[in-house]
């Protein structure tokens, strides 16, 4: 007999799993693209139909069932470039944008291209502690050495340059560190970097000549007061011209992890900055041999980066729905943090962005005996998603 009827699964960042509704505009356009006869259906708003028509024109054979180029539909890459240009005020070009079947695949491809060497010369990638659990699999598959650098929990999981330096220095003894992975907003920490912090990381990457892998997949989910998302690219281009033209950066985004959260559609992209054109050629080729991105996912990306505008028939509903998601996240973040901090042995840093909380648990020593496993730490962290609605209300403290 358990005090619950159903397990609430918040282990993955999947909002549909816990009843968070989809964004209507996106689903309507995709439905029409899949079954174009719906263009004649009166229940779809005009902007949905116009957009679907435009997207279908971009697909070969005007069908979501056709193959696309391995780097993605040209039209979508162009839309993404325009979105980034608008977001950052810095030009972005379609040829530097690569669409992939999820950001995980994109990270893997980028790292695989970097991976080389054996033994002491094996490529190393600096990764934050904590980091998303999928990163271990991805980097292992790419065949690189993982070099953890600790984030500072007491300062809300902020990035600590000293820790980074130490990790890098120590790593040079057993591998060749060539890249640094960072997620902003942080996964699973919920930390949002300010401009100064981003500049410091960029300067570190420049000085140590490492590639910056910026996982910005939660860029839409920033709700902390006085917090805002600034992209690594924007900060880079507003720094010294020498840095802006030389620091190599790849930033990642995806359909799985924004207000849209369409994990099952499987699509993401990476923007490659300051990369040698010959290397870019290899991105293209490597993508050829990887999992292809489903066309429906690619179209989803277009809809994510180019949503309804003010004056469009779907605008009002779109704003309501996305506002509701953000408001829910913001509310949950605050509330979960307050609730958890009231529990004995639990400490939760403030969460300003992303979709997870990562509270710390101080467990009594008796747990070790119960677990009957050697080396069970008595302090550990728990990561869970806060994309819930009212279900948490039922939880009795």
């Amino acid at each position, binding site marked *: 007999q358990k005090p619950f009827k159903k397990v609430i699964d918040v282990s993955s960042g999947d909002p*549909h799993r816990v009843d968070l509704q989809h964004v209507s505009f996106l689903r309507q356009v995709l439905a029409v693209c899949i079954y174009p006869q719906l263009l004649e259906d009166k229940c779809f708003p005009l902007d949905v139909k116009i957009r679907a028509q435009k997207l279908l024109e971009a697909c070969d*054979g005007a069908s*979501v069932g*056709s193959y696309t180029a391995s780097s993605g539909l040209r039209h979508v890459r162009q839309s993404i470039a325009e979105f980034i240009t608008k977001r950052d005020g810095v030009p972005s070009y379609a040829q530097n944008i690569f669409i992939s079947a999820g950001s*995980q695949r994109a990270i893997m491809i980028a790292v695989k291209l970097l991976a080389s060497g054996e033994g002491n010369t094996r490529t190393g990638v600096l990764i934050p502690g904590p980091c998303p659990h999928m990163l271990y699999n991805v980097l292992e598959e790419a065949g690189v050495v993982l070099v953890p650098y600790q984030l500072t929990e007491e300062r809300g999981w902020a990035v600590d340059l000293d820790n980074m330096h130490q990790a890098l220095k120590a790593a040079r003894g057993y591998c060749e560190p060539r890249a640094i992975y960072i997620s902003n907003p942080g996964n699973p920490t919920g930390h949002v970097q300010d401009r100064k912090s981003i500049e410091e990381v960029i300067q570190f990457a420049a000085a140590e000549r490492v590639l910056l892998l910026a996982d910005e997949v939660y860029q839409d989910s920033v709700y902390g007061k006085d917090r805002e998302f600034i992209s690594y690219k924007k900060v880079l281009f507003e720094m010294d011209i020498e840095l802006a033209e030389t620091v190599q950066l790849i930033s990642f985004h995806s359909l799985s992890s924004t207000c849209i959260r369409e994990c*099952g559609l499987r699509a993401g992209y990476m923007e490659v900055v300051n990369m040698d054109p010959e290397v870019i050629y290899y991105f293209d080729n490597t993508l*050829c041999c990887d999992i292809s991105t489903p*066309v429906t996912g690619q179209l989803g990306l277009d809809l994510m980066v180019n949503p309804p505008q003010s004056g469009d028939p779907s605008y009002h509903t779109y704003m309501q729905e996305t506002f509701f998601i953000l408001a829910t996240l913001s509310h949950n973040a605050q509330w979960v943090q307050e609730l958890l901090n009231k529990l004995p042995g639990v400490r939760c840093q403030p969460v300003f962005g992303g979709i997870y909380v990562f509270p710390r648990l101080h467990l009594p020593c008796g747990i070790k005996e119960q677990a009957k496993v050697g080396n069970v730490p008595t302090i550990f962290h728990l990561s869970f998603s806060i994309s819930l609605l009212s279900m948490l209300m039922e939880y009795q403290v």
Partner: protein
Amino acid sequence: MAARGLDLILHRAQVKLCDKLQAKTQSDGVRRPYKEVIDVFQGDLHRAGMKPLTFVRQVLAACVYPPLINSSNLPLDVRQRAQEELGRCVGGSVGSYSAAPGIPEIIHSISEFIKRRDGGIPSHPENIYISPGSQWSISNILNVLVNREASPRTGVLIPVPCHNKTVLSITQLGAVAVPYYLSEEQGWALQVEELQRAHESAKGVCNPVALYVINPGNPAGYVQSQKSVLEVIRFAWEKRLFLLVDELYQDCVYGENCEFVSYKRALSEMGPPFSGTVELASFHSVSKGFSGECGLRAGYVELVNLDPAVMKHIHTLFSKDACSPVLGQIALNLMTDPPKPGDPSYLLYKQEIEQIRTVLVHSVKKVHEVVNSLPGFSCPPIEGGLFAFPRLHLTPKAIQKAKELGLQPDTFYCTRLLEEGGVFTGPGWEYGQKEGTYHIRFCIAVPQDVMEELLRRLSSFHMTFMKDFS
């Protein structure tokens, strides 16, 4: 075979050329004998102008936008089906992650489909994995078979001709692709003596562990007879080879007296010792057949007679990637469990399938007729699959010209055909062929009027080409 990696670069160059040409024909005002390029380079039904199946698209649309389930504009069975499919998705949404190996109910449905297809021979869901396209399944299985550290290197027997993605996967893993030549004179038949020769040739070079078979063929349009399938199974058993069977075109059989025989069924009916020991992986996908949904990305593999320890490892491999796209998984389910007699959508579904089949049968006949009527061009009857792979009998002058340009002779032909004839085809070199022979590959799943135009352009170009290089 190692040079196959370069094919990718050539292929990309071809695709870029086609795109450039397509754009140019619409804008540069140069007079060409065609308005638009006919793109039959890939086996992509929709690109070539064939229509998707209405039932499939209606169900998928309702799954993507569930309010359509209440729309009276959609047939009742479509709406019910969409509701069922959504009921299997986590959170009732196609936007959720699914279990990495695939939605369990869909896997179960696939196992039922296989059982029905194979006359009641059981198929177990735990032996089936869904992945984003068949190539990914093939790669995963190859990953298990190939020992990168081994010396001598792992070998995989592959047919010639063969589509290049699998060959690339093999070579990327550090294994050796050992070619066995299909017999063009016998309509691309697979001959056991040739398998024997290929296996022998591997001695001292590599250690063959697997035999890759495509049935019906790609690009060669053969369909193996029951006798041929049994011979291959027996050979695999004798040489202790893992059978990798690509059965993507199992629905595309048009030859008279031809019938698709599944390797699993044949293996099972052989009885012991074969049925309990020959290890087999068979692949299928929504990209081919009559669905032609290449863009949705979904396929499956069924594994037979694998050691439980190996199955465990395979399970880990298929579980570590994020799941296949949910819409693709649903499309897979619709393919293996289509409307039945009595369902409101059945008649239309049947009609559309028949229409596609009629077009294919017609195409196959016309291609055979036209190609064989042209000098320097020949083609055995196309029994199945989605491609024609006719042979070019090029003159020494043409071959010489190609060499001067640094191109393979068939690549030279295809490039000229694209530029002057406005038809985008693939050179035989990319798929492998006997030394000194040349071929082109093109997709035959195009609407009737497009096929007529294609053949008209091909004939006209070919006659001019042969004259120029006579």
